[in-house]
């Protein structure tokens, strides 16, 4: 493990060990080549993100108002399709592809927004309870996370969304409030381990304040693994958002959600199955891309923390 050095050298030169890695185009390229599943995931995610973000410039038709004379058209590979509508139209003749682009836009906003909310809550609660560990405050916060985990998410969401009007903002809050508990436990146990480490002891011995310990020492070590968790959490949030809309307790029209596009197709399922299937596949691919990225990132993070 340790390189042998001879006594004759008084100054240890930097050539004896590998130089620190610099981020270059070449190193990025190599990372992408060596982690092909990450690259596939990244390509899918980038594709979905661009569809959503540039929806205004991409959509070929009006996503909100349809042409009833061209309703219930099939996607391009089937009979009864109209080349104008690549993925067909819904029951009042709105273009499915255009609606999916806007649905993706909403998914992206809500996915990242709610993860920002839940990670912030998880960080604050995890760090506070981990630092104050054997204390009343810690016990209270841990019981609070227990409560969140014991509550069936769907019920909690319905209850909250019947109090507040379901808008993009409120759905972000609901999803954020319903999914911080697991993450905050992970953070707490990591904080508790770090708190006992010698590098924190070294800081405290030199007079570092609690705030500085939390900010400069503990958070710094926590951040990479949190970043690695983001794709998986966003994937989760996207599925939950579409679920709420599908069950008609989430976003209300005219806001388009992938879940409500699916829900619209439900009544025509036996004859026009693609209306439900297509938005489902879009969610599946988006989530698959995020999961592929997240898996690789998490594996890399644990590798680093084991070595460090």
């Amino acid at each position: 493990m340790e390189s042998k050095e001879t006594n004759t050298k008084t100054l240890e030169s930097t050539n004896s060990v590998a130089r620190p890695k610099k981020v270059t185009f070449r190193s990025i390229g190599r990372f992408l080549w060596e982690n092909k599943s990450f690259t596939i995931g990244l390509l899918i995610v980038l594709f979905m993100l661009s569809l959503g973000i540039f929806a205004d410039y991409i959509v070929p038709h009006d996503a909100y108002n349809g042409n009833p004379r061209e309703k219930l058209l099939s996607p391009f590979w089937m009979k009864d399709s109209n080349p104008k509508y690549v993925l067909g139209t819904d029951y009042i003749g709105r273009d499915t592809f255009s609606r999916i682009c806007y649905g993706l836009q909403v998914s992206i906003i809500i996915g990242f927004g709610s993860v920002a909310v839940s990670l912030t809550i998880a960080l604050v609660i995890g760090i506070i309870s981990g630092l104050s560990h054997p204390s009343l405050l810690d016990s209270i916060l841990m019981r609070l996370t227990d409560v969140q985990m014991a509550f069936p998410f769907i019920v909690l969401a319905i209850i909250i969304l019947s109090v507040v009007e379901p808008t993009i903002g409120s759905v972000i809050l609901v999803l954020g409030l319903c999914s911080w508990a697991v993450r905050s436990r992970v953070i707490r146990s990591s904080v508790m381990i770090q708190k006992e480490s010698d590098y924190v002891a070294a800081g405290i011995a030199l007079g570092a304040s609690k705030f500085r310990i939390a900010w400069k020492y503990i958070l710094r070590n926590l951040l990479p693994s949190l970043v690695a968790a983001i794709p998986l959490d966003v994937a989760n949030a996207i599925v939950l958002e579409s679920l709420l809309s599908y069950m008609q307790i989430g976003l209300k029209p005219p806001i388009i959600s992938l879940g409500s596009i699916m829900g619209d197709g439900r009544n025509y399922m036996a004859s026009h199955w693609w209306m439900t299937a297509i938005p489902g596949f879009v969610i599946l691919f988006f989530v698959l891309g995020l999961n592929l990225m997240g898996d690789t990132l998490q594996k890399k993070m644990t590798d680093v923390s084991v070595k460090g």
Partner: protein
Amino acid sequence: MSESILRVEDLKKHYPIKKGFFNRQVGTKYVVDGISFDIKSGETVALIGESGCGKTVLLRVLLGLEKQTSGKIFLKGIDISTLSKRERKKTYQKLGMIFQDTSGSMHPRMTIEQILEEALYLVGDRDRKSQYQKVTDVLLKVGLDPAFRNRLPIQLSGGQRQRVVIARALIINPAIVLADEPVSALDVSLQAQVLNLFMDLQENENLSMLFVAHDLAVVRQIAHRILIMYMGHILEEAPSNEIYSNAKHPYTKVLLIASPSIAKGINEESFHVGLKVGDTPDPANPPQGCLFCTRCMQAMERCYKERPERKEVSPGHFVCCHLIDEEES
């Protein structure tokens, strides 16, 4: 050797043992139980003891990571044991710490430069320009190329990491350096290098140091005085030469025999030593008499009943053992 740098008076650290649902206190662990010593300017004192004898806890108390149960700690004459963290910072008398686990004591995601600058920042040195110069100087002082500053700890070898940890202890210009087994994790050739570094520092920097180790062989060349610690107490204290040539306490003799490199020149017969089978007693329930009586081959009846007093057998050589009285009479 004149000015007293670190003086400890009857320092105790006891831990309550709590049990059951209501966390009732059912006993006390006497981890550090009445330790006194005095380290003078430029002096290196070695504290020797087995693992679990309380030496690490003693260091944590000295650093202020834990509050002592009783006793006083004087750093350059100022009693720091009663000061709060903030007041402690204001005294500007600093303790440099060298941890046993070198990689664990450095933040895995900070570069060497950030680690060293953080130490400076925490002691109030916040001038970026002078920080840069100080990092260069201290790295040279411990024998590392200043180009190492941009590395992460993980990118260094074990010996290099140990030098960085020493650099961090030195960069704040401490009144005294506390070293917790600084070489025990290194292999022999690296041990020699690091010990050489310490000797250079003693010579050039007038370094005062408390050097904790579990083995007498390591400290032979660098310690001026040696304290032998067992179960939270000091059993023998003597100048370095005295320990190696004229150890009095049976426990010290056992430690000497245990170090092959020292034991070579010693006539084993004359020491009458050996160790009874058995573990160290539970620090929650220490023996009533001499602490070492449960493992001492020469234990007499008296040793089980009465705890021996600390006696000065020759100038600067103190022993806690009933055998001394036997020898005199």
